[in-house]
Every structure is written in structure tokens, then in C-alpha cells.
């Protein structure tokens, strides 16, 4: 663990009374190693370590008998501050229908995420409608229909292009006293100009209250590229980090936060609709640090 490694760095220096700048820099190298092993993007890791260097070089650490623990505390607190700095509530439309739009790379967990958010909203007394705007993936509409049926949540499907389906789903909601539309979109590559354009058009058509970027917790260095591209194209509002029930360290979370400035709001903790958790920064911080 990082704690053991830092102890290792400082053990040989015990009884020295006061540490040197070099000693601290060695310790921070271990922090960077832990971040890279946790899949934090290497540029984000560098920036983070630079951000805690000044405090780590302070008198308190240099003269501490437990410098390793102090450095971990500095790093951990800074991580929690970064990860948890913003509200994690989903936005509701104060006047009119609320629209949540789920976007992200292929296979990240968007369709399952629609069911999860739908169940959560239903339990909170809302009337959600799931809209199946993925026209590419084989049986995508079936998948959303099956999920909706099991939850007794209506699912809107029709044959048209994705943007029109989204618009028609919204119109259907208005006609049927539904106050919340959860819009499922097809997974796509952030470098696919045509499909990213489709999302931009969809955004114009339905004016989402919240655009949720759904990202896989096991994503590696690429997380920065995809999150940045989606954010530049659409302006995402929040992030759902999925498959956190695995053993991926989840460093992608820090990379995504750093490059978008947008908060992680939810965690996918399993495959069933109930497997959704509001994000807790301190737990993820400990996990990233290993």
C-alpha cells in the first residue's frame, strides 16, 4: 500500500531529526507511482503532485516523526476536496419537464444507468419515462423495454432518426403528464464527428436539464481524451462512474474531474437497477490511493 511504501522511504532516515527536500521529493515520487498504478492519467498525476508539493515541504512534515502519515493525509485530503467539491444532486427542471441525457463511450453502462436513475426517481415519487434513442446497437430498444417493464416504468420507442426520437419522446412526455425524461443514447467514439454532431443536435432539440457522462471505472489513460471531447462538444453536467463493484482502482475519476471540472454524481455498483449509489469522495479517494 502507499502507506507501506512511504514508510519504506522514511524508515532509512529515522532519527535524522529533520528531513531534506530530497527526502520529501522521493516520497512524492511514490505518490505519483500509486496514482499511475491506479490509472490516473500521467499528466493529471503530475499536476496533482505539484499541487501538494509546497505543503509537503512545510515545516510540519520536515520535522515530523511520522512524515509518511502526514503526507498521506495531505494527499488524501486534497483528493477528497477535488473529488467532492461540488453538489452531487441531479438537476430537476423547476418549471417544465426534466430531461436527463445519458452519453458516453460504447459499453460504459448508459442503458443500465437509465434504468437505475429511473428506479431512483420513481422511488422519490417522480414519473419517469425512458426514451430509447439508440438506433444503432442491435436490440438496444428491446434492452431498454425489458428493463423498463421489470420496473413498471414506461419506455418510449419509435422508428426515426435518433434526434427525432428524442424530440418525440419529449412530446410524448408532455402529452402524458410525465415530469421526467431519461434519454438513452448510443455509445459512440469521441472522435466520431458525425455521431458527436448527432448528440449536439439532440441537445438542441430537447434542451436537457442534465447531461450525464457515463464512464467505466476501469478506464485507463484514455479517460482524459474521451471526457474532454464529450465535454467540449456538449458541456456535460455530471458523471456516473460504473462498474465500481469490480477491483479497478478508479483513477479515471480524477482524470475526468480534472479535465471537465464536473462532479461525479453517481456510482454504478452492480448490474441491477437498484445498484446505484450517490458518490462518496472519501471512499474513492482511499481506493485510488490503494
Amino acid at each position: 500500500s502507499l502507506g507501506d511504501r512511504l514508510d519504506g522511504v522514511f524508515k532509512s532516515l529515522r532519527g535524522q531529526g529533520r528531513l531534506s527536500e530530497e527526502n520529501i521529493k522521493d516520497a512524492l515520487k511514490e505518490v505519483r507511482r500509486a496514482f499511475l498504478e491506479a490509472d490516473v492519467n500521467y499528466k493529471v498525476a503530475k499536476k496533482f503532485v505539484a499541487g501538494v508539493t509546497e505543503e509537503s515541504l512545510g515545516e510540519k512534515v520536515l520535522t515530523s516523526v511520522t512524515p509518511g502519515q502526514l503526507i498521506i493525509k495531505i494527499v488524501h485530503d486534497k483528493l477528497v476536496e477535488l473529488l467532492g467539491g461540488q453538489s452531487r444532486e441531479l438537476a430537476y427542471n423547476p418549471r417544465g419537464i426534466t430531461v436527463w441525457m445519458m452519453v458516453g463511450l460504447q459499453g460504459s453502462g448508459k442503458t443500465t444507468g437509465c434504468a437505475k436513475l429511473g428506479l431512483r426517481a420513481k422511488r422519490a415519487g417522480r414519473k419517469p419515462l425512458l426514451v430509447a434513442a439508440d438506433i444503432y446497437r442491435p436490440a438496444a430498444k428491446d434492452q431498454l423495454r425489458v428493463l423498463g417493464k421489470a420496473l413498471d416504468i414506461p419506455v418510449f420507442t419509435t422508428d426515426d432518426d435518433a434526434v427525432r426520437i428524442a424530440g418525440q419522446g419529449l412530446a410524448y412526455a408532455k402529452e402524458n403528464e410525465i415530469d421526467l425524461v431519461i434519454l438513452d443514447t448510443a455509445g459512440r467514439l469521441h472522435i466520431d464527428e458525425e455521431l458527436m454532431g448527432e448528440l449536439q443536435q439532440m441537445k438542441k432539440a430537447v434542451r436537457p436539464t442534465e447531461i450525464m457522462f457515463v464512464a467505466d471505472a476501469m478506464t485507463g489513460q484514455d479517460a482524459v481524451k474521451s471526457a474532454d471531447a464529450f465535454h467540449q462538444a456538449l458541456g456535460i453536467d455530471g458523471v456516473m462512474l460504473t462498474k465500481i463493484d469490480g477491483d479497478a482502482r478508479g483513477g479515471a475519476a480524477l482524470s475526468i474531474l480534472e479535465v471537465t471540472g464536473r462532479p461525479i454524481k453517481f456510482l454504478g455498483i452492480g448490474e441491477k437497477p437498484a445498484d446505484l449509489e450517490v458518490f462518496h469522495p472519501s471512499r474513492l479517494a482511499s481506493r485510488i490511493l490503494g
Partner: protein
Amino acid sequence: VTGTPQFDDELFEEIEEVLIASDCGLETAAHLTGRLREVCEERKTMKATEVVEIIKEQMIVMLNGGSAPVDAVIDVTPKVYLFVGVNGTGKTTSIGKIGEHFRSAGKSVLFAACDTFRAAAREQLQIWADRSGADLVSGDDGSDPAAVAFDAVNAAKARGRDVVLIDTAGRLHTKHNLMEELKKISRAVDKALPGAPHETLLVLDATTGQNGVSQAESFGDAVGLTGLILTKLDGTAKGGIILGIRQRFGVPVSWIGVGEKIDDLETFDSREFIEALFA
């Protein structure tokens, strides 16, 4: 003072960063750049272009050798492929593509829909079966995937099919009961046709970070892997985790996925892969 010019250090650091940025992982990156330094000192290599060529060669050597090509013909019919991996990596889609690959090579193919859990999983595979002209054997929702696998292999034997491609539900390798289920599927296949599955392929998403290594380890321990399929290489991720996986577990890459359409399948080529990594 070693006599090597200052720029060498910067170059080695830059190369190490390219490796880390490609998801090769710290250990593999350090191992490779460490070896690279030794070789460059031996050969007194100074030019940056030559240094880069050396590490590319190192990495290609690391990826080469190993098992027979995954679509090699064997003297048993049908040849059975089991597809495994964590959720959303592209197993079902890859089966569709590989089904088409075998069809165009003149082989008859049967798909086994052993994901009996996920919503519309069978419907998704049915569409791929229609597109690639393959048979499909499936069970009811929630039925025992091992029983479906057993039936599928027997059906392939009875119908004289050349190839069976078994789709399984995505599962996180940390879920003990799901890994046990996977072992049961593999045993059921062996019961139906001793020696099967002849290939067990881990489907890995190219965007996966270091967790890919622990996926390979766990799935390998559970059912034994004969190859990897690296998907979504049409994105910006480089898929460098396959180097660490190759080094630690000896598992080679058989196919790569380069898109969502039926033709978006390529045989793995280590030189092309490494060139793209440094591009």
C-alpha cells in the same frame, strides 16, 4: 559522469511517458526503458530515431511467438470457442464479426447464447446470427447457461457445424459465484465434446487500464485463456495492457476489434500495433 549526452535522459523519459500514456503500466514501461538504456549503451546508440526503433523491436519481440493462430484448423469438429470477459467489452459483437469471418472462409457456424441474464442479450446475438448466417442455440431467460452451452455443442455435432462460438454474460472477475458459473460452462462444454473449448478468448476493451491485467489473471486462473481479443482499437486508446499480459501470463492477442460493423475485425499484427502505439 557517464559520458552520455544530457539529451539521452530526456529521450528515455519521453519514451517512458509514451508507454505509460498507452496503458503499458509502470512496471512494463520501466522494464522496457531499462532494457532500452542497456542496449543503447552497448551499441552506443545516440540518434533518437534509432533509439525509438530499438524499443519498437523490443516490444514486437515481447508480443510475438507463442501459440498457433487462433483460427487454425484442428482435426476435431466442431471447433469450440468460448468468449469471456467483464461487462461491456464487446464479446457479443466480436462473436458476430468472427461468425462472419468463418462464414466467408467457408465454415458453418453455430452461436450459443449463454448470456441468459442480461436484458435482450439473446435478441442482440440473434441479430448477429442473422447477419452472419450462423445458427443460434439459446435458452429461456434466466436458464442455466451451462445447460445451453451443453445443448449448443451437441446441436453443432448433430448438425455437422464446423465452429461453435459461445457467448457468455459479462462478469466482473471479482464476483466469485459468477466465476464459478463460468467454470461450470467450460466443464459442460467439455462434457459435450471432450477437449472443448479448444479456444478460450478474453475480450478486453482497449480503453481498459491496469485492471486489464487482473482481469487476465483471474479469468486465466478460472478457465485458462488461449488468446485475447482487443476491442475498440478504432478509438484513441492504445491498448498497451496487452504487453504486460503477454509478459506475465503468456497470453497472445488473436483478433482486434476496430469498429461496430460486421467487417470491423482484424487479425492481430504486432508491428502494426506497436507502430500505432508510437504514432
